[in-house]
């Protein structure tokens, strides 16, 4: 089996591939932002910019220079962590991202976690009671989850839980009255660090609706995925052999079959995180959640092009890294994945 050396080699090779992919992503972003638009300077300066402002931008960004030298300086800026300046607010984008990224990650991680914690057992349950009442209702739930447009379910839940019942807050990350130090940027952690139970409770009730909305799609996806791969595993000879050996059904499902069903699905489950991040635009806009998605949406509305490019790049890099982490976890857990 794998010695430590082989594992490290796999890790190194996988990391190198990810780096190449990130370089490719940067290149595509560059092409879309500098070459695709008819006049990038006009786009960067904004629709209402005066001609001299457009000229200023053209010089600042070196847009008259040959494409190759533009590309080199673009890469150089990125390496130094310089993502440019927002034309709407004049703030450095890197600084904004540092502030907004944790808010989005908090939301996306919570949604991913929720979809796995609920989705995996639900998928197993559905597969084990195939075609019966509970299976049908779980599948109906899953289909509803993947079919509902995020902004629509968000509005309905807001209407029900915030406006009509008043059980949950309408929007935002915290109440205006709540105040604590932002140490990590993850409010769940920060509120715990502040030592106040009411702070933590406030953060949690604000998380409830956006997370529920965000998790709907990945949850449906997870249920269908796990149900499908579970059915396949349950049809295999080794599970039949365990049944003939009279291993209790519960053990067969929770110990023998589950690991087989989840491991190959793990890479695909990485998609759940991707979907959470993608739907962040919509969810954060509806819930006035001060994260990357809202930042990006606002930039789109203001046609603040440097921000759009930089935020898209940042989200993609996070996404690539998450997939890398998932692959490594899978390689660690699945004996069949060849490390080397």
């Amino acid at each position, binding site marked *: 089996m794998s010695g430590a050396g082989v594992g490290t080699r796999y890790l190194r090779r996988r990391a190198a591939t990810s780096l190449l992919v990130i370089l490719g992503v940067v290149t595509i972003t560059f092409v879309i932002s500098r070459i695709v638009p008819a006049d990038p300077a006009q786009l960067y300066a904004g629709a209402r910019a005066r001609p001299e402002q457009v000229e200023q931008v053209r010089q600042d960004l070196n847009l008259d220079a040959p494409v190759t030298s533009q590309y080199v300086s673009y890469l150089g800026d990125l390496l130094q962590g310089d993502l440019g300046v927002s034309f709407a607010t004049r703030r450095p984008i890197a600084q904004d991202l540092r502030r907004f990224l944790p808010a989005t990650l908090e939301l996306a991680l919570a949604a991913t976690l929720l979809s796995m914690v609920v989705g995996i057992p639900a998928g197993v349950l559905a597969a084990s009671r*195939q075609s019966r009442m509970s299976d049908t209702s779980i599948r109906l739930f899953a289909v509803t989850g993947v079919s509902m*447009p995020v902004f629509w379910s968000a509005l309905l839940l807001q209407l029900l839980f915030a406006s009509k019942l008043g059980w949950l807050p309408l929007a935002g990350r915290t109440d205006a009255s709540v105040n604590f130090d932002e140490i990590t940027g993850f409010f769940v952690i920060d509120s715990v660090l502040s030592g106040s139970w009411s702070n933590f409770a406030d953060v949690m009730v604000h998380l409830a609706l956006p997370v529920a909305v965000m998790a709907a799609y990945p949850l449906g996806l997870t249920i269908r995925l796990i149900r499908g791969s579970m059915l396949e595993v349950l049809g295999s000879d080794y599970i039949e052999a365990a049944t003939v050996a009279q291993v209790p059904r519960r053990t067969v499902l929770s110990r023998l079959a589950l690991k087989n069903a989840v491991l190959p699905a793990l890479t695909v489950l990485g998609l759940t995180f991707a979907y959470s991040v993608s739907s962040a635009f919509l969810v954060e806009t509806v819930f006035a959640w001060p994260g990357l998605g809202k930042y990006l949406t606002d930039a789109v509305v203001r046609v603040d092009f440097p921000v759009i490019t930089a935020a898209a790049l940042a989200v993609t890099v996070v996404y690539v890294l998450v997939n890398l982490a998932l692959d490594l976890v899978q390689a660690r857990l699945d004996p069949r994945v060849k490390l080397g």
Partner: protein
Amino acid sequence: MDSEPQSPARRFGLGGLRRARSRVAAPGSALWHFARSRLGMAATVIVVLFLLAAVFAPWLTPYADAGRGVPDLPVRLQGPSWSHWLGTDDLGRDVLARVLFGARAALLVAVGVVVTSVVIGVVVGAIAGYFGRWVDEILMRITDTFLAFPPLLLAVLIAAALGASLRNTVIAIAISWWPWYARLVRSHVLSLRERPFVKAVRAIGVPNRRVIAKHIVPNAMAPVWVQATADLGAAVLTAAGLSFVGLGPRPAHRGLGNHDLRGPPIRAVGPMVDRRLRRSGHRDRGHGLQPRRRCHPRRHRSPHQGRPAMTALLEVDDLHVTFNPPAGPVRAVRGVSLQVRRGEILGVVGESGCGKTVLFRALLGLLPATASVSGAMRVSGEDMPTDGTLQAAAALVYQNPGAALNPVFTIGRQLQIVAGTRDPEVLCDLLSRAGLVEPRRLLGAYPHEFSGGMRQRAVIALALAQQPQLLIADEPTTALDVTTQAQVLDLIADLRHRHQLAVVLISHDLAAIRRVCDRVMVLYAGRVAETGETNEVLGAPSHPYTQALLESVPRPEAVGGDLASIPGSVPDGRDEIPGCAFAPRCRHASDGCRTDQPALRPVQPVKPAQPGHAAACVLVETPV
């Protein structure tokens, strides 16, 4: 398992009806199955209604202008009424009209996105797969990079760079989607490229462009259509998302995404229902395909000592197994009786499809719930229901040991779970008894680290861990190489002696049967053709089918001569067989053989307390 025979009404009436219908609508096709289900029917109707509504929107509503976005301020924000079924929005436009026209835009976007991304994807995928090497390398790296973006994000970025319009929405989504099609097509082209018909046209000098267009792409399209159909719905959702952040089609062509925001949310119900129902077509398939399994509480297994060696462990009388697919019942086993004694190996032979595997899977309760099983079974002289109770006494050894071991657990862990103990001594002992050396090291190993022979030994160890009285080995040596085959057979023979096991060896390898079996049972079309001691049945076969089987075994001394085969094929399980099932293929058959079913008759004088040599053929003359 349903062990009661089915009611005649169900057996004939419904079955006949189903068969009659299946002749009309090409049975077996996926579309046929889909349309047959109630859910499938409902989904089809809804999708068709939606398409009609989208296409004929201008004629379906008196408010076509409102649908195109023209405001009518005097009637703004009205609730549902007779003249405005879903009310009006903040600019006084009829919501129903807007929904209908929104569906038009949605349909346009969906078709536009799917067509564009399929075209790009198919071209890139076909070129990459066909030319291979550096072309493939470069194109696939580019594809992978596009796939690295979260799906909606790339579309947002492109739409922002291009500016918002219906056309740009289509372009933005298509650019973020084509890589999926490129990968799909490439993988199919890779295998198509090696196919003889492609090699042939290349060899006669057909230019590459024509080969790709005429011979490669048309054959690689099937999976693309499946994916494209599923993507139509997703395209609408994505376009709605883009509209929501302000990057969708401009107001003149609104998608379904952006007119739901103002006014009370009830307005949004229309588009919601549309979308959800359009997706309901993509439901999971495959229900009803898995056998339903049961688990019986673990029974205490009696130890093997203290019983005379030659009592029958398993006796089966007149077992029938019938499958009931929609196309009509299939009779796999048609009245088989058998017995297996402790310390004895019974060989079960016959061509594929003669019912040998089904027979024992039925006794183990491993058939789908739709199969009906009838007959009597006694285990150690005790009457037992034939619905899987045999599991308590039996263990199964599979044809493919690779599939019978769980790939993600170590051998030790799997033994632990079955044996119900963590004691390494016990587990090592099981492995040693299955003939594996260095058992302690093997406990921590995964199945994929084993050779084929070792895997089969591990499967046997797992079987022993169940402390069975009966071992059912279904073609245990077919997947192994010849030397390993002999070793595994000898191991089974040896275990039988050491543990007084009753063994059933299902095989069509007559050499294997001859090597280890005490008795043999020849099955044909779900009936017993001949049974008796191995050397009698295989040495002096009485049934023409057994004779034919033996003649079709290749013999080294007959090199050069034609290999005998049995003309014709095993009868269809759907047919009633009035006479001898083998008659159509039998050279001795007379008219009587086709109408009267021959009973099993003793070939030799019956010895007491022991089943003798018997064959089901009119040619057999019972000695007195």
